[in-house]
């Protein structure tokens, strides 16, 4: 969570210095949801993160320098300059990168899980998306198919209150958890700002998925503490809502919890700062991508690569 926030703070500052092209998108305030969920995965469980889920990339082992290089559009970044901001995924580490159309990757996650089920493999997939994405047809198609085939998939809905500027009250009448039930999918609500609670419900969802008990929709209630992107001042959000959620900052809460356990949080923070400083220097030194060869890699030649194994630092706490 600390690395997630520190990288995004650095990315935002590089953006303000004019070094990051396009806009800049972060997941401030939502770190606990993606980190807690990704920590519950095994090494062979692919994840499809969304726009606010940098932590999931980091848990899977994507190096901070590759993330910062990605923001900068450098050859050594995850997207090699081909795509920017949060559109990235280190497939060799089990991360399938998002596209802008939401929630397209949910269907892809269902397909992966379906293949695992058909082959009898003890694996599952994790797909994250926001409350706005639940209005799209793909969400309903993927939910219906996942429920029908009882695939080992975990859906994490990051209920962060806003889809760009549209509050969820203008997005839907029936809560997504109720909608999950009509697709035959178990729904669980969780405090999305409590990393351990998110870990626990995801761990349980994974256990059920691997036991053949089908998919789970986890609704993680959280708040997007910044605008949609750096260009958006979020003036449409009532200040008291920000105040309410600022008092529930996921990092602050975990910091208190760890202090109570006698953990030296300050030294961890210093370590993260040093790591992000070094990653930032490394990313800024990366070469620009070569402009020639625009057609390179449009088509695959030879045997295609499949999704690889990611790091799973906490998977020993998971079911299998």
């Amino acid at each position, binding site marked *: 969570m600390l690395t997630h926030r520190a990288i995004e703070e650095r990315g935002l500052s590089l953006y303000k210095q004019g070094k990051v092209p396009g806009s800049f998108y972060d997941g401030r305030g939502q770190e606990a949801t993606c980190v807690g969920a990704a920590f519950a995965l095994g090494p062979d469980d692919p994840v499809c993160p969304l726009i606010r889920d940098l932590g999931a990339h980091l848990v899977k082992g994507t190096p901070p320098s590759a993330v910062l290089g990605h923001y900068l559009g450098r050859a050594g970044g995850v997207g090699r300059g081909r795509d920017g901001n949060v559109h990235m995924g280190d497939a060799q580490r089990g991360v399938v990168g998002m*596209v802008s159309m939401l929630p*397209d990757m949910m269907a892809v996650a*269902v397909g*992966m899980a379906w293949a695992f089920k058909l082959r009898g493999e003890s694996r599952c997939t994790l797909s994250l998306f926001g409350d706005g994405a639940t209005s799209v047809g*793909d969400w309903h*198609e993927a939910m219906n198919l996942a429920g029908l085939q009882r695939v080992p998939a975990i859906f994490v809905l990051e209920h962060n209150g806003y889809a760009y500027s549209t509050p969820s009250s203008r997005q839907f009448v029936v809560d997504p958890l109720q909608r999950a039930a009509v697709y035959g999918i178990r729904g669980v609500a969780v405090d999305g700002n409590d990393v351990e609670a998110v870990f626990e419900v995801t761990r349980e969802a994974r256990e059920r998925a691997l036991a053949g008990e089908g998919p789970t929709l986890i609704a993680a209630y959280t708040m997007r503490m910044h605008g949609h992107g750096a260009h958006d001042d979020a003036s449409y959000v009532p200040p008291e809502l920000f105040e309410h959620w600022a008092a529930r900052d996921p990092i602050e809460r975990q910091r208190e919890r760890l202090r109570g356990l006698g953990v030296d949080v300050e030294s961890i923070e210093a370590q993260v700062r040093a790591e992000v400083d070094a990653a930032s220097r490394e990313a800024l030194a990366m070469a620009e991508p070569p402009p020639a060869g625009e057609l390179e*890699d449009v*088509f*695959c*030649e030879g045997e295609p690569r499949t999704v690889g194994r990611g790091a799973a630092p906490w998977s020993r706490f998971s079911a299998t």
Partner: protein
Amino acid sequence: MTELTYLEAISDALRIALREDERVLLLGEDIGAFGGAFKVTAGMQEEFGADRVIDTPISEEAMIGGAVGAAIVGMRPVCEMQFADFVACGFDQLVNVAGKLHWRSGLAAPIVVRLPSGGGVSGGPYHSQNPEAWFMHAPGLKVFAPSSAQDAKGLLLEAIADPNPVVFLEHKYLYRRVRGEVPEGAYRTPQRANTVRDGDDLVVIAYGAMVHAAVAAAQQIEEASVRVLDLRTLVPLDERAILDAVRDCAKVVVVDEANYTCAPGAQVASLIAQYGYGDLDGPVVRVATPDAPIPFAPVLERAALPGIERIRDACRELLAY
């Protein structure tokens, strides 16, 4: 060799792929016990099981997106759109997810999406379309459009073996009307154009059902020698074969069953205009369906689709140029 219809040749390819490669899965609406709207997959669920010949809900996005997911973890899914027209409902997954996947992530999506396409069967505006140009315009997708039974089988096996997403246009007018000698067992047809009729006064460039119309038109033109080049694949487009044919014949008619504007033939014409200009002895002539939906009534549909007469008349006019 055995004589098969175009449809039987496609079924044969699917059966071979299911038998020889355990990664192959068929996904589609009503393809299981029912055998598909056109019976292409008849008997396959019985033979290979409901885990490999899978009836999906009416969810083209989830079907194609799910196929991409299965493909990136090692499967080789083949999706059937009940009619080509319905691929519009899965367009986003095909164009935005599958097509760009390799370029952006290094992963590939070896999926095949079969599209029973084309008119001539009174299908009306939602069961007759030729959407090939939509996908030619989207980077990362291959587009195949066989005209014969032999190519239908060989190109489908080639598509399943290809590491990229392939949009496979199988012309439903040809399903039971075209028969041909088809080699037994597995073989793969190359992604290159094929001269189906020799000639050196004029070349008609076509694909899919229009190849048959072009050959019939050429046969009616006794006063000149008309070549017919079957493109077979639209992506990749066999540019060398097109330019060679133009150099040999100097006159060219390009035929599409797709709507005129930006149809595959427009790309062929543009290629010739830029690189074959010096070899031309006359304008590049295009024959295509007008930019209107495909009508239902047989008399209206016949008037809209480019038939033998229109192709023949276009050839005669150009020969006289």
